[in-house]
Structures are given as C-alpha cells and as structure tokens.
C-alpha cells in the first residue's frame, strides 16, 4: 500500500473528516428476539451486533460465585467482515484479548453483587471491520446491557484517539489504525463519575502528548454517551407506545 497522507495540509483525513470529528454513529437496541438484551451499533463502517443473556444459571457450576455474577464474553468476527475474507479460529489470540478487555471493563461497571450465583453472557458479532473494534464493542455492549435490564453503575462509553502529524485525532478508522506510526489509544469512561474503566494504547506516544490525546478521547466519549442515551430513550419510548395500545 503506498504511503498516503493520513492528514492533509488542509486538515482533512482520508475519509474527509477533521481531526476532532467522530464517525457517524447509528445504534439500535432490541434487535434480536431471543436474547434478553441486544443491540446493533455502527460507527462509520464498523458494524457490530451484540446479544446479552442473563442473569442465568452458570454453565459450569464449578465456576459459580456465591457473592457476585460471572461475566462471560465471546467475541466473533465474521469472515466477510474485512475486505479480504479471513476465517479466524475460536482460539485466536486477538479475539480472546478483545473479549477479555470487554469482560474486565464491564466487571467494573455491572453491579455484580445484585446477581450473585449467576452468569451474564455477552456475545459479539463483528459484521464489518473498519477500525475501532474495541470501542464499538464496548458501546454496543452498554446498549445491550441496558436493553437487558441489567443493573449497572453507569454507562460505559469508549472512544479511540491517535496522533498524526503533531495533531491529536479522534476515532481512528482501519487505514489510520494500521499505519505503524500512528499511536492508537482506546479509552472507556463512566461518564457520571468521569472514571476510566479501560485504557489501552498501541505504538509509541511521547509522554507530553498523552494528555491532549486522552482529553480528546474523553470528549469523544461524552458525545457517544449522548448517542447511547438517545438510543435507550428511543427504545423505551417505543416500548411505552406498544404497551399503551
């Protein structure tokens, strides 16, 4: 791939966005009928479908915890999701890593002690991949968990940010992510307290630049919080309308 300019002199990125612009977000709750909660979340061209089951009987009774719920996450990437078709095995390290990050993030946000001795399952399906896998999964999972009616301390909103040509940029797509020189920072926050639930970064970033990039990412998270809240209200209004007839 020829080295293309990720940030043009006019300040436009490869997909025409400015440095501090988020991609278009489309999200909907309650898309699957059998799951207790589900959501479909699109951020730019990254599309993810998530199903939440729970609280229910733990599958392995030996893992049952007497005082809190077990969170179980499985992450699948559809073979047709990337521009080159690729089938990943179930034990793929990258998939397991993402599932593990999501699990740890939500272990801090879900009120697990409310659902002692049970299991909450979160199953992801990445239908189209265009960067920001972890952030879209976390946002989608928040929506699905709310749809399932599972108690959480707060929404969990995630966003990525990077650093191109001395400028902090928000919400990287796959072209920007795959560039080796661009550091890729993923942050998940709990908006009400402002606490950070997840922080992950790849590549190199000078320590003096870290603050500005993180600030930008957290700004993005606030914006995403609004979008998720709107989706929850829309789903609730929809339900209220159906119940009132």
């Amino acid at each position: 791939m020829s080295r293309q300019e990720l940030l043009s002199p006019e300040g436009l990125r490869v997909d025409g966005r400015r440095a501090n612009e988020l991609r278009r977000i489309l999200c909907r709750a309650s898309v699957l009928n059998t799951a207790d909660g589900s959501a479909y979340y699109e951020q730019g061209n990254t599309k993810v479908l998530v199903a939440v089951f729970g609280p229910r009987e733990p599958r392995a009774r030996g893992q049952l915890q007497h005082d809190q719920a077990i969170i179980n996450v499985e992450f699948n990437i559809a073979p047709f999701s990337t521009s080159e078709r690729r089938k990943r095995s179930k034990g793929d390290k990258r998939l397991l890593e993402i599932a593990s990050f999501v699990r740890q993030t939500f272990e801090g946000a879900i009120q697990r002690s409310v659902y002692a001795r049970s299991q909450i399952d979160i199953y992801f399906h990445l239908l189209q991949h265009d960067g920001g896998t972890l952030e879209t999964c976390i946002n989608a999972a928040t929506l699905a968990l709310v749809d399932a009616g599972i108690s959480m301390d707060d929404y969990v909103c995630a966003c990525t940010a990077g650093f191109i040509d001395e400028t902090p940029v928000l919400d990287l797509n796959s072209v920007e992510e795959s560039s080796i020189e661009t550091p890729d920072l993923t942050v998940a926050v709990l908006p009400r307290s402002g606490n950070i639930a997840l922080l992950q970064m790849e590549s190199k970033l000078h320590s003096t630049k870290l603050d500005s990039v993180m600030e930008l990412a957290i700004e993005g998270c606030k914006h995403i919080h609004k979008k998720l809240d709107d989706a929850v209200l829309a789903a609730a209004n929809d339900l209220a309308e159906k119940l009132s007839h």
Partner: protein
Amino acid sequence: MTSLILSPSEQDFITRGVEKGFRADGRGSLDRREVTLRTNMISQANGSARCRIGHLGLGTDVLVGIKAEVNTWTPGEPESLGSIVCNVECSPSAAQEFEGRGAEDLNVELTQTLDRMFNGPQSGIDMAKLCIIPKQAYWVLHVDALVLDVKGGIVDALVWATRAALLSTKLPRVVVESIADEDGNLQSEFDVVDDAEDQVAIEGVENLPLSVTFNQIGKRFVIDASEQEEAVTQASLTVAVSPQLEICAVQKGGFLRGFPPSLLSEIMQTARRVARDEFAKFKELYETAA
C-alpha cells in the same frame, strides 16, 4: 437439534395433532411460517442476505455473506472450473450450548449440507463461467453463514438466505488478455476491473435450488417444523429442488428411526409440488428485499 424438553403429554398432543392434520400454531402440514428476507446489508461483501423464518420475528435467523476471491490454480484441481466454498457458524446467541467449541459438530453438519447443495453443477450455477483462465486462475465464492437464532427449520433458512445472497452477488468484471512472451507463446493475463459500477451477476443463479425439510411425526409428515415439532420428530428429510422442479440434493437428518420407502416417494412428489409455491414466494420476497 437444540435440546428442548417436552413432557409426554405435550409430545402426545403434537404427534396426535399432526396425525389429524393440525399443528400447534394452526398451520397446515404443508405451510411454512412467515419468512422475512433482506439483502445487501453488508457493503463490504460481494453479496449478502438475512433470512428469518418464524412468526413476528421470533424464529430461525440466518445471515449469509458472500465474498469472491481469485484463486491460483494448483495441479490436482479441476482445470477450468470455479468453486463455491460454504461455511456455517452457529452463534452462541442461538443456544448456550453453542458457546466455545460447542457448535462444532453442528457447524460441520450444516456446512456439509450446504456444500452438497451448492458446490457443483447441481446448484445450477455455471461453474465453468467462474473460471477466469484455465489452469491459472478462477473465482472462488466463499459462502459464510452466521446462524443467529434457531427455532426449527435451520436448513431451509440457510438455503433461502444463501440463495438470496448469491442472487444479490455482484462480481467485478475480469478482462482477459493474451500476450505473446519472448518465445512467441501466448500467455493469458487477467485484470480485475476495480469499478464499483462495472459488476456482473453470477451466471446461472436463477437455477439455484430451494430446500424443503420434511419431518415425520407419527405417521404423517410436516414441513418447516417448529422447535417443539422437531423435538417429537422421528426422522427428517431435506430435499433441495431446482426451479425446473428437479431434485438437486437429498439428505436425511438424524433423529430416531428411518423412513418407510413408501413415504419416501410420497415426500419426493410433495417436495416438487411445494417447491413450485416456494419459488413464487421467494421471488416475491426477494424483489422487496433490497
């Protein structure tokens, strides 16, 4: 396929109901549940479709994506044919047993079933047209199916979705040139046209089959069994029929026992009759699906 435990009275109720000609949800024995079809929702795939079979959205849900790739020919492969590779994956959102490696057996079984129906001339697709340059390059169509929910009749949903996805598939056009090299021999080279507007459909897709699954309950059989009906099924037979009403593939599912041969020929005749209506229904749904 997924375990549903029914009490003996429920089993008796369903079995005797079927024998008298009525089913738990009021359908006739040859009626299919409501089908919803959507196509082209995955922009990165060459073709895609989502099929849901069931009342009010609660039912079997399958998503199929088609990706076309150019493969280099290796000795041992057919010299002037393309190929279709199917792959089915059941999601844990369909059943908890499908978590981790739990769905592996079912995935393999469904993959092989689809493969039997679609990979080869019996599918109606002109495999020779999928070859770009004999002994050099050919198109391979990857059919990736994702099963999101299972409420009976999984094979039919897979076939409907696969047919819709293949019908909606657009392949980039390929330009083949013959160039003379230093020795004066003619070498063929191909170039894939990278234009989103300049795409072609697969040749022969109108001939793709649809499948009808017959489940024997008691002494009679029903089509498109629901979850409860599958739990009392004694034997099942999936018949794939082409639009020309020829039988393309037949597969007997597991369950408890075999079919009496007299029932078998009755099923074949019924399959062809039912298929006629199914193709009409498919056409109607497909046209409004995009």
